């Protein structure tokens, strides 16, 4: 589940008429049926997602090997956090890599995806072919993408070295591997952003552009002063998607080398601390809590954007 599913809210030309009827009376068995319809899924989502999230926060203040019952937990305050920041060498690189991931995804594939969407929105002949090409990587998992790009990045048999005449192990050399992985991840991300943005652009009222054209605005000017402001909700969604994608990045580096040797990410550190041989539950939870806090900030922004549209 590498995808960040979103509902791009295309600027609607005509808002659907509100139709919330009067009060609906519900009685007897219907009431029980309705209650079950809400309660069962809610219990699942709370039990599998929200309770573990809260438990991560609680356990981040503990020392626990995970073996034995809950009574073997020692409460040690904020010591895990102190250790994360001062006494854990991979943390600083991991944080830096996550940040590089975010900036890279944003500067290259996100902007490029938007650019492609703007180009494809101009009624090109053969749009279907172009869309298919850019969109194809989106259905592949990032784990598989890591695999496929091995054919390009391999030291002895890769295309890239053959073209450049170099002898670099693109996945193995810690000087290059983060960038190599980012290019492969961008290959997918650009198509994803293009798709979201194209759907948004299709919903922009054409009369806006025509009015701008009548006023003598150039196409570039029209895009920046007319289309872009109208697309505000999509822009926010695209930004949040990019942030959360870079925070959740995991599959591609795990499949390459389990997030070591230049490919450390916060997500791989959490995983290595929990499922590895030395199970450090409290410490892993502290790392997880840091992830949780960062992501909740952006999830809140995302939800308030999307929900406001849904409420209209």
């Amino acid at each position, binding site marked *: 589940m590498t995808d960040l599913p979103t509902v791009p809210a295309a600027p609607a030309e005509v808002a659907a008429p509100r139709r919330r009827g009067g009060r609906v009376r519900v009685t007897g068995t219907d009431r029980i049926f309705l209650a079950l*319809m809400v309660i069962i899924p809610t219990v699942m989502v709370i039990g599998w997602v929200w309770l573990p*999230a809260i438990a991560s926060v609680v356990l981040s203040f503990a020392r626990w090997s995970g073996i034995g019952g809950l009574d073997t937990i020692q409460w040690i305050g904020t010591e895990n956090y102190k250790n994360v920041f001062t006494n854990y060498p991979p943390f600083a690189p991991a944080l830096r890599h996550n940040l590089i991931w975010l900036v890279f995804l944003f500067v290259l594939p996100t902007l490029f995806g938007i650019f492609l969407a703007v180009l494809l929105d101009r009624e090109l002949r053969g749009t279907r072919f172009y869309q298919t090409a850019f969109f194809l990587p989106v259905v592949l998992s990032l784990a*598989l993408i890591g695999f496929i790009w091995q054919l390009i990045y391999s030291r002895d048999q890769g295309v890239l070295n053959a073209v450049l005449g170099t002898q670099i192990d693109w996945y193995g050399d810690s000087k290059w591997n983060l960038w190599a992985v980012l290019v492969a991840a961008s290959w997918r991300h650009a198509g994803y952003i293009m798709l979201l943005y194209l759907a948004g652009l299709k919903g922009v009222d054409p009369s806006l552009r025509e009015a701008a054209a009548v006023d003598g605005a150039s196409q570039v000017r029209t895009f920046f002063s007319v289309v872009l402001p109208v697309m505000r909700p999509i822009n926010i969604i695209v930004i949040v998607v990019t942030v959360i994608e870079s925070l959740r990045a995991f599959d591609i580096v795990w499949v390459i080398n389990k997030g070591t040797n230049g490919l450390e990410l916060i997500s791989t550190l959490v995983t290595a601390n929990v499922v590895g041989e030395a199970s450090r539950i409290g410490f892993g939870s502290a790392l997880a809590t840091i992830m949780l806090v960062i992501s909740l900030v952006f999830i809140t922004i995302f939800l308030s954007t999307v929900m406001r549209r849904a409420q209209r």
Partner: protein
Amino acid sequence: MTSATTVTRPPATGAATAKARRRRLTAGRVVLYVFVTLTALAWLFPVVWALLNSFRDYAYTSVHGYVSLGGFTFQNYLNAWEQGEFTRHFLNSMIITVPAVLLTLFLASCVAFVVARFSFRFNLALLGLFTAANLLPQQALLVPLFRAYRSIPLPLWMSDSGQLLDSYWGLILVNVAFQTGFCTFVLSNYMKALPHEMYEAARVDGAGIPTQFFRITLPLCRPALAALATLQVTWIYNEFFWATVLMQSGDKFPITSSLNNLRGQFFTDYNLLSAGSILVAIPVLVVFFVLQKQFVAGLTLGATKG
């Protein structure tokens, strides 16, 4: 479907300007076409390259290099299938994906129905609870979930590990819990746009809530359900993280997370690696080419209504 996905341009002015623009093939447009075409071809390259090499003999390419012709064979596919135990892993993917998608869509429909149909004060909060759950980084939940899975016992007929960890059940449930949020959000928007009068009529005829849900709402939501099913099959098939950490024995991994183990085996023979990659990609590529419309609709659904 069309009404719920994208807003089409008003036909009159849109078509006229399109035609006018199409006639003018200016230098700018030529540059545009060349640029987009080259980029598109570059985008296809990694997949085409893998496809090409998957049909070539390793002994041939290692002597003549990859920039050569000849040495075509189908043997890589047979070898990859056998060495990677693809029968086993594809079967595992199916065992996990099919129930997970069905359960996700059913549970999401239930919540969406209530949210769309009845205006409780906590409806928005409920929707937020579900949608946000879908966006959390999985690793943030890993520690307690992993520990809990290890201590929840299952009878042996359900899981030969005797616990939720390393069982199909555990993996299916975690996928369902994660995906329900997104589907609920999309479906509730879709259901809100259904004509209200039908429910009134059904109520007058004495239809209870179960009848309304199964006989009216679900059939009307078929387009949305089809789009979401396409999307969910792809995502759960592609799911890597949970399967990697929650499955312990190698023969239970679904195909995507079995890539982790295959890497060592295929490492030396890149043609074998290509064939393996293509095999793993085939199901999603089929979805991509056959159900592309559904897939895109799923991503952009719920956009204009609500």
